[in-house]
């Protein structure tokens, strides 16, 4: 940072003002010519003009040429939000030989023309005030020089479902180090629980497991399974991450996955998480046969040694001597340049729709439970039976939009449930061609590649698609069957039908376990509580936090092809700073006027980044800013009783000049 550099005090301030029409977006509401004319008469303004599209090449050329022609040394651009085009215009200034910090933008589109569309006169007056305010600030702008930092060439990927796996493999194949953290004992996520994938009917495990196996084998991937992110500090290029590796009580290196420990474990009645409680597991377990890593884990909450202080049978029978009850939780610190969030989703809790009787009737199950019943590796070995009596179902109903498109629960569409139920209907027909299958829907959304064709095929197979939302599921006394009440909206009548099994197509909801990482990184959420991307169209995998990226259902419900595409996109974005090797940090950081500082340490106490410190030399210690740690928040500036601290780009004089200009009565402004 070149300190203390100011525009030469004797140098005359020459401001150029450019008012954008943005086609008709601004000009239809605001009289841009009037605003430009008004600006041209303000003190220190040398040149003012309006332009159809300031961001276009001719618009930028006008700025560059005007800077040279009129010898401008400050630029004010009134157009869209600075969140949109500030980087564009900073480059325009640089191209004309001006320091990029000598720019002030005025937001007359998002915060003026678009929100006052029916009040052109008042909007024009407001635009004039805002432009005057920016000119007042521009007069006080000083050149600033960005700081550059080296980037640690590695990425942290949080979550190892298909999204995290794909992103990790892509980054690792590009040659960057990846730390892949998964909280469960195995990687694989929800995709590992699926039997088949729509519309191609690929066996989910068959296409997923090769990728899962590639992960720990890859020399660039450090897989930290059964682990959680404890804390994250730092900023893009230089994140410091602390990861807690939970104790498995079985040595990962020694364990050969022979399974003798689980076989001999006397506690065998624990509901299997992987099978959603439809099957049982032992207290020593692998979640599913193809788990990666294949290491067994002792579940501390159910193990007799941990609960009652007896047993340790596994320790005695393990041929590899891998059981280690003395194992402790470990803390691992890693340095990374970028972070990818791939924490996935939770299935909507169908108990929140008690009218469908999930808790009352065993034969009412969720779509993911149905998936486990279909799976050859599932609790029934792939035999489709009614949970209540083990008999094959003959009449199955699928209820769509359970916890989706529903004002009582979640208003959004979960995007996968229509196709999942169509796939399930097909699978039932495949196993039992004479079974009756009905799908109760609001709208069927078969939007992806090959989806509509698959839907047509399943219609041909004789599945009934009934347009109408199911209202209730109940059981007649002494009946084995379930009665479904629904409105057939095509016939316009309420009907009842008996089924022996009802599958609830549960929606997707944000992962509750992702909350700590959201708080750690201060990531924004959408109104639906999924993670918010930086821009819905143009920056779909970035977040507002530089160096942090999103992929998979953490960002919103989506199917596997979209997840994989987004994961590769996130990996690509996350590799950009790593490939560049350095990041440029905002130069708008604090500095302390040593003559004014009294060493009171108030600034120290308000800075959460430890970026400002009073040097402990003697009693005349003065505060100093650590430029690498300062994040431009300005808390210390507002707190300093001696007004000794200045935030570059947001100085007290500049902000005061802004509101003073805004508060000048309108008549004085003309």
């Amino acid at each position, binding site marked *: 940072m070149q300190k203390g550099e100011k525009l030469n005090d004797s140098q005359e301030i020459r401001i150029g003002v450019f008012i954008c029409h943005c086609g008709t977006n601004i000009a239809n509401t605001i009289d841009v010519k009037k605003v430009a004319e008004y600006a041209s008469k303000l003190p220190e303004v040398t040149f003012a003009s309006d332009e159809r599209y300031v961001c276009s090449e001719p618009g930028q050329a006008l700025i560059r040429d005007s800077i040279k022609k009129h010898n401008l040394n400050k630029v004010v651009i009134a157009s869209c939000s600075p969140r949109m085009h500030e980087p564009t215009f900073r480059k325009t200034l640089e191209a004309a030989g001006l320091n990029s910090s000598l720019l002030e933008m005025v937001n007359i589109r998002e*915060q003026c023309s678009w929100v006052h569309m029916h009040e052109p006169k008042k909007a024009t007056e407001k635009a004039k005030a805002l432009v005057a305010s920016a000119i007042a600030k521009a007069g006080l702008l000083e050149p600033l020089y960005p700081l550059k930092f080296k980037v640690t060439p590695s990425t942290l990927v949080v979550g190892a479902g298909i999204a995290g796996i794909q992103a990790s493999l892509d980054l690792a194949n590009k040659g960057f180090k990846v730390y892949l953290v998964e909280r469960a004992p195995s990687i694989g996520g929800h995709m590992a629980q699926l039997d088949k994938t729509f519309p191609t009917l690929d066996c989910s495990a068959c296409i997923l497991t090769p990728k899962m196996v590639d992960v720990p084998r890859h020399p660039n991937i450090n897989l930290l399974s059964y682990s959680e992110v404890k804390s994250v500090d730092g900023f893009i290029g230089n994140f410091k991450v602390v990861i807690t590796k939970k104790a498995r009580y079985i040595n990962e290196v020694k364990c050969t996955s022979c399974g003798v420990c689980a076989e001999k474990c006397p506690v065998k009645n624990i509901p299997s998480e992987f099978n959603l409680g439809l099957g049982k597991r032992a207290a020593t377990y692998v979640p599913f046969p193809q788990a990666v890593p294949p290491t067994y884990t002792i579940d501390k909450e159910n193990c007799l040694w941990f609960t009652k202080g007896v047993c340790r049978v596994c320790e005695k029978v393990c041929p590899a001597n891998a059981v280690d009850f003395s194992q402790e939780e470990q803390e691992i610190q890693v340095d990374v340049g970028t972070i990818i969030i791939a924490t996935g989703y939770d299935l909507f809790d169908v108990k929140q729709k008690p009218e469908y009787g999930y808790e009352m009737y065993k034969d009412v199950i969720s779509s993911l439970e149905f998936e486990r019943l279909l799976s050859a590796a599932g609790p029934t070995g792939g035999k489709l039976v009614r949970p209540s009596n083990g008999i094959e179902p003959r009449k199955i109903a699928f209820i769509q939009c359970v916890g989706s498109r529903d004002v009582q629960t979640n208003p959004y569409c979960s995007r996968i449930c229509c196709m999942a139920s169509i796939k399930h209907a097909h699978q039932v027909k495949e196993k039992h061609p004479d079974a009756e299958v009905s799908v109760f829907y609001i709208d069927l959304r078969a939007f992806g590649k090959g989806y509509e064709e698959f839907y047509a095929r399943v219609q041909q197979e004789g599945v009934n698609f009934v347009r109408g939302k199911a209202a209730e599921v109940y059981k007649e006394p002494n009946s084995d069957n379930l009665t479904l009440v629904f409105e057939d909206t095509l016939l316009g009548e309420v009907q009842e039908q008996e089924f022996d099994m009802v599958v609830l197509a549960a929606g997707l909801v944000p992962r509750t376990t992702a909350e700590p990482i959201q708080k750690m990184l201060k990531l924004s959420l959408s109104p639906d509580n999924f993670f918010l991307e930086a821009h819905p169209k143009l920056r779909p995998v970035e977040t507002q936090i530089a160096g942090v990226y999103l992929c998979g259902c953490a960002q919103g419900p989506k199917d596997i092809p979209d997840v994989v595409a987004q994961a590769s996109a996130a990996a690509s974005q996350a590799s950009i700073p790593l490939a560049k090797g350095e990041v440029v940090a905002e130069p708008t950081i604090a500095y302390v006027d040593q003559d004014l500082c009294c060493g009171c340490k108030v600034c120290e106490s308000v800075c959460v980044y430890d970026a400002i410190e009073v040097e402990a030399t003697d009693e005349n210690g003065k505060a100093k800013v650590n430029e690498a740690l300062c994040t431009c928040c300005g808390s210390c500036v507002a707190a300093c009783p001696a007004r000794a601290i200045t935030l570059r780009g947001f100085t007290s004089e500049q902000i005061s000049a802004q509101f003073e200009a805004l508060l000048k009565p309108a008549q004085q402004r003309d």
Partner: protein
Amino acid sequence: MTEFEPTIIGFTCNWCTYAGADLAGTSKIQYPTNIRIIRVMCTGRIEPEFILDALRLGADGILIGGCHPGDCHYQEGNYKTELRVRLVKSLLTSLGIEPERVRLEWISASEGQKFAETVQSFVDEIRELGPNPLKKNSELK
């Protein structure tokens, strides 16, 4: 006599409320023209002096918009603001100026609707309250 048009200064943080105001724009949600926004990176940057000065210079209301508790981009900037705003309000009360002229709201980047509604209700409230009593003096100056 023309109807009283309040002038409201908004101080909004870059990450949440400024972005929320942008979203109101992108979504074309209409609200009164009375507000003029000054962008700061964090509401923690807002010096109590700014609020007092703006009132002294005739602002009829000050709207401060920051991130929801727990969501501050800088961890605790919004908490500091809350304390400072409380202090300013009690100071205003003792000076005989309505503390309602200063309002603090948490509005996230996805709450464009809330931003527009907040501006509307604040403008209505200030209209009810009438012009800033200090304005005359500042105009005389």
